[in-house]
Structures are given as structure tokens and as C-alpha cells.
């Protein structure tokens, strides 16, 4: 069965536990939300899942097989792609080259990489930006390029690290629609890290809440919204505050 699974993953930095015994599973076509306060260990978990950081204990399993100590580009070749906070594009290169170099890095020939890059930009809805220098793009377009780049080679799983940071409500809604298309049309399993809890509650099928490196709650959005533990983690008290829900276009 195709799935990406973190199995009791722990990470310690100089004795300080960044993650302790975290379990998480993403299956194709599913959108899993990963939320939690700052410093909860969300990005560390993405780093472990993509080979950027070794787990101190536990394992990452792809289709039941442990990834072991594969390097990031080897993990990427197995079909696990990610984006980074802030995009991290090659800012001096044209948009199309950002995608093309990813395809080439995946082992595609240049012609195949160019063809897929063009098709991908079209699919993400930014085909007219192909020749623009990536560093000169507006913030939201830069994010779309980063997602397009991550989708090169049609990964089985896509890990998005705060893709909506700094976006307006309208822009976040458009991004949500794109993420849904990635899951539905591509059949890609998406792990979404996002501070915008409303976006996560409106978009995800399943949500994992981290606090201080440990999973404090998992379940569908309704269960997360109703959870006292989640409220407590976010608000520092059990105050009766409604978590907002962002409406997502189908």
C-alpha cells in the first residue's frame, strides 16, 4: 500500500527533544494538516520526512520500506517532494529554469524537463511567468513557482511548509483550491504545515497537532476544532474561542 509514514520519530538536538515519538501517515490523494504553535517541531518533522534531518529514534517508511539514511535528493527521487518556508527559489534564474533544473536533478533529459516544466507552469496557472526572473516575482507568484517546482517529476507526496504565510484571505483561498487540485487531480498525498489554522481546518481531511515535539491530537477537522487540548496549546488557556474556518472553492 502506498503511504508515507513517520513511525515514532524522535529528534534530539544536543539533548533537547525537538520531536518525541511522532506518528503520522499520509496516503495518496489525502490532505493532512500539521499544525501547532511556534517551535512545536513541524518543520523538523518535514525535514526528517524528506531526508534533511536524521531521526534520532524511529523511522520514516515509504510504502512500508524504511528510507534509512537517504540524502534529500534520493528521497526526492523516490517521490517525496517539499517546499520551503519563503520559497527558496533560485532567484537569479528565470522561472522556467527553476523547474527545469529540478527535472534535470531528477534524472530527466533536458528536453523532457523543459516540456514538463512548461506543462507544470500551465497547470499551476502561471504559464505567462515562464521567462520572468524568479527573484522579481510578487510573493504569491513566487509561492506558486515553488509549488510547481516541487511537483516536477509528479511526486507521490508533497510536503508544503507554510505556503500561505503572508497571504491575504483571497490569495490563501486560491492557494487552497490549488492544493485541493494537487490532491484530487494528481492523486498526490499532501502534508500541509500552516499557521493559518482556518485554512487547514477548511482544507484537510485529517489533522495532526504538535506541541513541544509531541502529537497532542489527531483527527478530522471537527474533532480538532472541538479539542480542548488544541485550544489550550494555541491559546494557553481553555478559553471558549472559536477556531475560524476558511471556505474553500471546490
Amino acid at each position, binding site marked *: 500500500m502506498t503511504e508515507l509514514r513517520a513511525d515514532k520519530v524522535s529528534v534530539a538536538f544536543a539533548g533537547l527533544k525537538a520531536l518525541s515519538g511522532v506518528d503520522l501517515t499520509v496516503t495518496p490523494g489525502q490532505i493532512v494538516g500539521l499544525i501547532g504553535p511556534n517551535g512545536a517541531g513541524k518543520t523538523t518533522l518535514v525535514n526528517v520526512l524528506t531526508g*534533511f534531518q536524521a531521526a534520532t529514534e524511529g523511522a520514516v517508511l515509504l510504502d512500508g520500506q524504511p528510507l534509512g539514511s537517504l540524502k*534529500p*535528493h534520493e528521497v*526526492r*527521487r523516490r517521490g517525496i517532494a517539499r517546499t*520551503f518556508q519563503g520559497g*527558496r527559489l*533560485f*532567484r*537569479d*534564474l528565470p522561472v522556467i*529554469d527553476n523547474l*527545469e*533544473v*529540478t527535472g*534535470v*536533478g*531528477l*534524472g530527466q*533529459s*533536458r528536453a523532457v524537463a523543459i516540456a514538463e516544466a512548461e506543462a507544470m507552469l500551465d497547470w499551476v496557472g502561471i504559464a505567462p511567468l515562464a521567462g520572468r526572473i524568479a*527573484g522579481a516575482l510578487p510573493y504569491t507568484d513566487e509561492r506558486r513557482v515553488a509549488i510547481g517546482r516541487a511537483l516536477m517529476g509528479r511526486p507521490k507526496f508533497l510536503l508544503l511548509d507554510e505556503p500561505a504565510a503572508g497571504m491575504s484571505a483571497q490569495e490563501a483561498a486560491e492557494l487552497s483550491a490549488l492544493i485541493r487540485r494537487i490532491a484530487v487531480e494528481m492523486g498526490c498525498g499532501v502534508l500541509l504545515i500552516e499557521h493559518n489554522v482556518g485554512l487547514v481546518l477548511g482544507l484537510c481531511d485529517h489533522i495532526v497537532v504538535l506541541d513541544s515535539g509531541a502529537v497532542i491530537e489527531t483527527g478530522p477537522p471537527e474533532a480538532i476544532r472541538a479539542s480542548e487540548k488544541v485550544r489550550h496549546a494555541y491559546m494557553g488557556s481553555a478559553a471558549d474561542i472559536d477556531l475560524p474556518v476558511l471556505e474553500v472553492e471546490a
Partner: protein
Amino acid sequence: MGGLMQVVFDALSLGSLYALGALGIALIFGVMRLVNFAHGDVIAFCVFALLWPSVDAVAIIFAGNLPWFLLIPFTLAVGAGLSVLSEVVVFRRFRRVNPATMMIASFALGFVIRYFLLMLFSSRPKSILLLPGLSQPVEIFGARIPLLQLITILVTIAVLIGLTAFLRRTRFGLEMRAAAENFTMARMLGVRANRVIMGAFALSGALAAAIALILGSQTGTANIMMGASVMLMAFIATVIGGMGSLAGAVIAGFALGAIATVMQVILPPDARAFRDAFVYGAVILVLIFRPQGLLAARGTRERV
């Protein structure tokens, strides 16, 4: 008119040398953040390669006697080969250290090459007669300039066009541009890091060889220090151009050539001996107003 054109051609041909040298340094700095101070000694090594396998200047029996269509590829291969060898033997071991340590290693490598040449050929300059047909003058726009000067300029333009096409149109060029901007990210995306770095060294070494051919033909001598002066100006050009920016290195190389040539003309005769001091003074002024260089490469500011 003739006099002015003469100055223009002098400036362009001197600028060409600096631009070629600066490109060689910037290519490697781009992918490795290494300022390769051994570059000048690679130039000298390539000049002395023309004397091989003899170490006696009066008995050129092999390379220096080759016809130009063999001589040029031979010298380019020597430069590229030595440069790649220095990567494999020395710099590869310094990948994870800070740039200052790598720079010191490059100084050390430069000394090793220089003293190797000194051991074989002694410090006395050797005379070499390289491509003698190139010294005859040609008349362009009323100026009589040596054919070699014209060829230097044309070769540099051809190298720049060729390198631009290579970087823009080939898979290797694409990987190199990505690696130059953000090596770590490029590597994480599966860009072939070792091949990109070796390619950069090969190109840089070939550029050093091109300078060796031009210098050897211009001066008619082989001198173990002959790469050092070009290297210094080329290094300054890469700093002014914005470390790692290829376009900046080329522009600054030509600008330095122009400044040096113009200074030679406009300075009073008594002050001409201090020409380089004026050139370096201009460099200080540029760096006061634009410390990041004319075209700062983004990769030097932002790294993953």
C-alpha cells in the same frame, strides 16, 4: 583619430586579458565560494607547458612547435587538466571548511605550482617564439595595431559568446547556474555537484590557458611570475564586478583595462610609473560607494 583608435584597441585588448582572468576566478567562486589564488600560477604553468618536454628554452622540441590548430587545444587541455587535478587532489578536501581556509589552500597550491616550475626551469625568463605571424601590424580605422591584439579581442568576444551560450543552452550550464546561486539547494534537488564543480574548474583552467597563449605570444617570454600580475587585476575585477557574478567580472575586467590604458595616456610622464596606484585608487573609490560590487551575485547574500 588613429591615436584615439589605438587607445581604444589597447584598452580592449588589456581589458580582454583581465576579463578572461576574472571569468576564470568568478566561475569557481560561483560554485565553491573559493577565491582561487592559484589561478595565476596555472597561467604560468600553461606557458611553460609550451617548452615541454625540454626544460631548456633554446630547445623547443614539442608543444611550442605545434601548428596553431594543435597548439591551442593542447594548451587548453593542459590548463583544464591542471585545474581539474587541483580540484580533485586539493580543493575537494576543503569543501566543508570556511572560505578563508580554502583561500589559504589556494595560495599554498599556487606556491607549489610556482616552485615546481622554478625547480624545473629556474627563475630566469625564457624566450619563446610563439605564433610569430601574429606580431605583424594591421591597419584598422587609421590605427596600426598588431594582429595579435585584434585576435585577443576577437577571441575574448568569442569566448564570452560561447560561454554565455553554454551556460544558457546546455544542461550542464543550467546546473552550473543553479549551483552558482545556491549550491546547497541545487545539490538537494539532485544537481550533480561534483561534475558541476569539476566542469567549473575545467572551464577556469581553459581560460587560464587562453591567457597563457595570449601572454606568451605578446611577450615572447616564459616567466614563472607572468600569471601573477594578471591574476591580481583579474581578482580585483571579480571583486568590483560582484564576487561570483560572471557578467560583473567581465564588465569590471574591461573597465579596469580601460582605466589602466587611459591613465597611461593622460597621466603626466613623471606619474606614469605610478599608474597602477591610480588604478587601485579608482578601485577603492568604487568599493567605497558599492561595497557589494557592481553586479552582486545573489547567491553570495542568500544561502540555504
